[in-house]
């Protein structure tokens, strides 16, 4: 696997050089400047000024409804800003999407879906190209290469995420964690500069969370891919994080873990008394209001789940 990563890194270095030449600047991966978004008549967040450097691992945190997915969608250009500026890899949002790998929120395939994992991954490579992949046409440079090179790339990235054993099986038969890895492979296959992952750890058990977090961390570190990962719990990511963006109350706070996840910062953000406790092994526990309101629409109960595993 180390060989894969080294090969990967070399390829990305080469591409990054040309990417830099193309964009002409080493600018931030994502830059928001006093940005605001309204969805369905409601302002989700405003006055957000956040900058993410290339190659950084950033966690996007916040409670449900705070607009984390919305921010990802804005970065992808799927949602327009109602105020402020946003540039992604030096360009307006949406233009650089071919160099962005995206893992949307929790898709799980029908149990009977017969498409193989490796077909799903292959789609990430050239699924957006019209026409059929005819092997005898001249190979194009860069991603989207045809024939054996494409196949090799797909195999390479599947091995990188550790899914080689089950990639040939119908994806409907794979477990949640396995499907997640395959979808990460799909996001990685065209060697993106930036990875956007929307709650990738959400439906996984603790061992799988740790494994996927480690995988993403390794990819970020060794291949220089920037990662913006939406999560509910920062703890599996602590070892790999560079910075944190915390969304709450329609505003955002950005900084290192030590700066942001403190009682003082979070209390100011929420406008409510919030305490952050540190366990002996470094894990962080956020303690908020005694009661969540009745309409709190959590999809499943993280709290008890984590409580059960915490000890």
């Amino acid at each position, binding site marked *: 696997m180390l060989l894969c990563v080294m090969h990967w890194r070399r390829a990305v270095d080469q591409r990054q050089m040309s990417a830099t030449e193309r964009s002409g600047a080493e600018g931030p991966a994502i830059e928001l400047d006093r940005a605001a978004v309204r969805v369905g*008549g409601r302002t989700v967040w405003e006055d957000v000024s956040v900058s993410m450097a290339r190659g950084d691992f950033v966690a996007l945190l916040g409670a*449900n409804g705070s607009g984390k997915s919305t921010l990802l969608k804005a970065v992808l250009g799927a949602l327009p800003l109602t105020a402020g500026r946003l540039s992604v890899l030096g360009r307006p949002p949406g233009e650089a999407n071919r160099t962005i790998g995206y893992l949307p929120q929790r898709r799980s395939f029908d149990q009977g879906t017969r498409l193989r994992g490796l077909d799903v991954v292959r789609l990430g490579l050239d699924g957006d190209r019209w026409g059929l992949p005819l092997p005898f046409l001249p190979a194009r440079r860069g991603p989207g290469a045809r024939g054996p090179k494409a196949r090799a790339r797909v195999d390479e990235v599947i091995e990188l995420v550790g899914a080689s054993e089950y990639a040939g099986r119908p994806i409907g038969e794979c477990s949640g964690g396995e499907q997640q890895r395959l979808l990460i492979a799909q996001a990685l296959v065209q060697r993106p500069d930036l990875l956007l992952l929307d709650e990738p750890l959400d439906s996984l058990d603790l061992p799988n969370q740790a494994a996927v977090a480690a995988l993403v961390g390794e990819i970020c570190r060794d291949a220089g891919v920037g990662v913006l990962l939406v999560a509910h719990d920062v703890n599996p990511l602590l070892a790999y994080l560079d910075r944190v963006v915390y969304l709450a109350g329609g505003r955002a706070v950005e900084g290192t873990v030590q700066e942001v996840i403190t009682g003082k910062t979070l209390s100011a953000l929420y406008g409510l008394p919030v305490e952050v406790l540190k366990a002996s092994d470094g894990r962080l526990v956020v303690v908020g209001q005694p009661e969540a309101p009745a309409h709190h629409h959590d999809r499943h109960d993280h709290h008890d789940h984590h409580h059960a595993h915490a000890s």
Partner: protein
Amino acid sequence: MQADPTLTWNVGRDVGEVLEYHFMVNALLAGSIVAVMAGLVGWMMVLRRETFAGHTLSMMAFPGASGAALIGVPATWGYFVFCGAGALAIGRFSGGKSRSWSEQSATIGAVQALALALGFLFVNLYGGVLGGLDSLLFGTFLGVSDGQVLVLAAVTAGALVVLGGLARPLLFASVDADVAGARGVPVRSLSTAFLVLLGLAVAETSQITGVLLVFALLVTPAATAQAITARPGLSLWLTVAIGLVVVWAGLGVSYFSVYPAGFFITAFAFAIYVIARVIVGVLGGRSADLKAPAPESPPPRGVIA
């Protein structure tokens, strides 16, 4: 019979005129019974999202009728055998959670195509003409005998008793198959049992109302009611009410017109459906704007950051 019945604005007189004739009374009775049965069974069918299966089962009447004609047995046997067999085939080969919807729907489609292919074969072998298509599709409301009404009532009563008995576990299994299964509900068998019930209901009623009309009465009132409200009791009542209204109106109007009752019934039912969807859509959009913006939840307790 009046030489040329015409619809006037005097509703009382029109209704009275219609009810003068025994065949119309029978038609109305039969239609009402069908509306009730199709409404209730169809409600469950729409809830379980088995509309495609329901349509396929109603199409089974075609080989049923033509097969029976070929062998020389009463059409009724053909209807029941084919609809029942179709229900078993669908239940056996396209049921179960391990099959994706794409596979299930492909199987149901294959079953339907096969049934129609066989039906066409029977017609050809029998040498019969397909001129009876109109009555096959839309039935012969106007030729309903007293005996037929009684049989219809009896079958309906039986079907509703069975449905009533199955209703609660079936509802449970429809909404949450995993939990129901864990609680001991025989989900798979119930599924098949419901399909058989659906098949038999279709077999009986389509002999009078025709294949297409029974399906229209299965789907449209229930779809309308469930689009309007999610409360089961209310939507059940609505389904039956809508079914009765469109049947009466359709039969009544068709008396004065040269066009078949089936057309009017489906047209009225569809009109009500569209109106309901539009109203619900407009109201739903309106209330979303008026709703206060959903407040963000405070930081959750526990280990989460």
